[in-house]
């Protein structure tokens, strides 16, 4: 369980070290930052609401921040709040030493806006809109969007069912040498 004590227990620390890709320093730093997020709240709370998590400087301007919170959150209420262990999961998936498989798995879930297990046309459209920005003049025209989505599906939909599933996504990602270095968040 996430602890709000100022020190992490030693065995807990070593357990986290074994189960995640984070080093000891990174776990301690994460604990410190997480405690700062909790410090203004009630001491009994173990999970941080989504708005507080989104106030972290590393996530503040990221267009995928809400999806990230939803994907890593294990709360029953599906409100995107993160416990300390969810936070560690997040950092582990985005860390330097995480494997390509883990990163592509979580990237797929982040990009799957409707949580149905595949990336269909609607998901791809939302993804491209996140990439191109909030302002109106930086978005693609509907015609360009349609073309883009059909091109993407043509390139990556191997079994031609109109959606990109996890395996096809991982196949596309494995061909990109920059993915691992760009899918990183360091505290």
């Amino acid at each position: 369980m996430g602890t709000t004590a100022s020190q992490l227990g030693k065995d807990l620390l070593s357990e986290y070290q074994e189960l995640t890709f984070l080093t000891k320093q990174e776990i301690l730093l994460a604990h410190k930052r997480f405690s700062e997020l909790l410090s203004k709240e009630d001491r009994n709370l173990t999970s941080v609401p989504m708005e507080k998590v989104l106030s972290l400087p590393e996530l503040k301007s990221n267009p995928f921040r809400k999806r990230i919170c939803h994907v890593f959150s294990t709360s029953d209420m599906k409100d995107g709040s993160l416990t300390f262990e969810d936070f560690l999961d997040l950092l582990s998936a985005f860390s330097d030493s995480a494997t390509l498989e883990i990163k592509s798995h979580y990237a797929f879930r982040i990009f799957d806006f409707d949580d149905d297990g595949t990336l269909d046309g609607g998901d791809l459209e939302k993804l491209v809109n996140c990439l191109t920005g909030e302002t109106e003049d930086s978005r693609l025209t509907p015609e360009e969007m349609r073309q883009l989505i059909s091109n993407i599906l043509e390139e990556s939909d191997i079994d031609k069912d109109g959606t990109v599933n996890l395996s096809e996504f991982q196949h596309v990602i494995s061909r990109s040498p920059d993915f691992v270095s760009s899918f990183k968040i360091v505290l």
Partner: protein
Amino acid sequence: MANSVDFNLSPIMELELESLREDDTAQDSMCQLIRVTGTGLESGSPETLEMEVLTTEGRDRMASQMSDVRERADERRLQRSEESMQTDLLVRNRWSAATLRVLSSMPSRSVGQQSRLEIISQCNIRSTQLRRYHRQNQDVSLSSRPRIRGYGIEADSEDVCEEETKRQELVINLQSLSAGDRVRMMRATPLSLAEKTKLRKLAFSDKVGQSLLSSQVPCCSLLKRALYHVLFGCLFILSSLQLWQVALKRLGGRFGTGVLSYFLFLRTLLLFNVFLFLINSLFLVLPQAIHPPLHTPSSHRVTGLELFTGTGYLSNSLMFYGYYTNSTINTSCRPDEATAGTGCGTTSDPHMMAYNIPLAYFFTIGITFFITGIVLVYSMSKSFGRSFRVFKSQGNLAIKVFSSWDFKVSKKMSVRLQSENITTQLKELLSEVNGGEEEKGRLSGMALHLLAWSISLGSTFFCALGIHCFAKHMHLRRLEDAEGEVSLVHEARLLALPGVVSCGNLLLPGLFNLVSWMENYNSPIVRLYVSIFRNLLLKVSILGVLCYHWLGKIAAEPEQHGLQCWESFVGQELYRFLLMDFIFTVLYTVFGEYIWKLFSQGVLRRRRKPVFDIARNVLELIYGQTLTWLGVLFTPLLPAVQIIKLLLLFYMKKSSLLVNCQASRKLWRASQMSTLFISLLCFPSFLGTSVSVIYTMWTIKPSSGCGPFRNLPFMFHSGKQWAQELKSTNPKLAWLNWVHSCLVENPLFLFLMAGVFLMVIYVNTQVLDGQRKIISLLQEQMENEGKDKKFLITRLQAIHEERQRPLSPSSRPQPQGSEV
């Protein structure tokens, strides 16, 4: 490279096997699936639109029987547009609930819904595979996802707690794995941390309080554990010592991966130089410093200029070649007895350590070059492997959309810039893919390119010629000066040639930039490569002229140029070049970038700050490193100068970047660029310097008045002499001599090595080729499986409807395109 290909194969294999599996099961097992999985699904949201596309595509495919799908991409695109027109007329909502349930519970889609079960099953498979692999059981190939699903259904199709049984299986599997595998497995499973802790507790509930790594405690495991701890401790220390980590993170966050690659390259060069410096100082400088040679102290005025010119009191210091003696230092001697010659103590005690300075010099330089070469080639091959793409598809759009967002970027401004970048790139790519490029007037384009190339090549040639003439002129002047008094002006004249060369290095790239702006290339990548090539040509020709001058003219006839010790002179020249290069870089950064920013913002009224020119800066770094490598033979302490220079350069460039520049809008493929930089460092730079060093050592006569190789016909004779001495004093080591003569002097050995090398390359290329063919075959197979899947689904639907029809005579009228 082979590894990356294998990774491509495994998801393909799984998909293929899965579809095979699905096609194998007949319709009754389909019904079974419907029964079992119908219970635990949360949302059977119909994806109707794609179903229609599926149907029409299925029908059309069956009708047309297109065999070679890939080559008919255009036709397919055309068809798709036709199909999209037909979808409006098609029936919506015509898939029955059962079909939809089957579809949405397909394994390929269950990432979001039954994620935990699916992941645990996968983990199960992998751990089973690992366990079987360790027990040398080869029966692993068909234990794919569907098998496990089938297993679950056969074993307990009535059991609702399928998850619990899976978990138990997983726990048992985990317990039987070795410790390292367990850790790796646990880390690589995409479950949440809470789940993993639960699993861990279940698996190791009887070993509470112990870490996974200490699960078995025989004696050798204790040792292993201790070793692990030591290793982790060392790695921890090393990682905490990682230089400039925070600064690099800030730079990467603000400017992106492209600029970051420049600074990472700088750090790599720093590490190379630190290595060179340590080895040199340990084996060369320290022994000589402890036993300094006896020489008459000459009176030199200490002015500040010596630091720049390397003359004066520096010329007889540890810095330069001339200081080193050709003596053998015996450790039992007192320091003042170590004179030129064989050293003190005639009756040599065989256990006394004799340190032969010329030999040490020769071997230190040789071994450092050798190790540097190996490290460079290794990092180059690793870099190549990372950026190599196994096979190119038609376009890059999917890759760009999925992997171009840099999550490290955190500042709002940079995020907005990144979005703009991506939008521009997507639009460009779209227009490239879907429309042709405009046909510019080809003739005028060719003429323009010709003109541009002739300008750049001509300017390079004239620059090199000018430097050649200027160098000759400067030497004549120096000879005249040497006859007269030594004065400050004469010393300052030594700095003229380096100054001129650095000027050329600064100005000509600007000219090249202008020329390429005039040429107006279509693709930014081509422009980048062309500019890198031109800059590289400039630097190679300058260095070539200088090397010819030093090694070809001065070294061959040192008396004509009035030099006692030509090696020291060449060392001093290189020292001066390095320093002037640094000074000019500082001046350029301060005046060039800062003033250009003021100019462009004030006068030209551009809102954007100038862009950091990565290619040019990297080539500057490579040029500096080449000078260092050239000079190491003559100036053993030159790496120290380069280290100081690189450190200062880092901080200077960083602050200049933060103040003056902004992130580039241009496309920057970071990994391919890093590969390019490392290969540029290896091939022209390192290869050229090692060739010149080898040439120096093998063919040029060292000067007779100074240095450790005086009185030797060639430098490498020190090694030869030592080998012969070894033969006479210690016959047991005579085989070393034989090895030496075989390896170094016999050309057959080199030919053999080259032959073996080429064969290895050939075999690897063939393997790669074969794997490419397999991949394309598998892709075709997968497409066919996809068609089969669609066929089966439509058949399933058709059968279901047939069954429905007699039961409900007033069958619902098939809804037309009104419902959504």
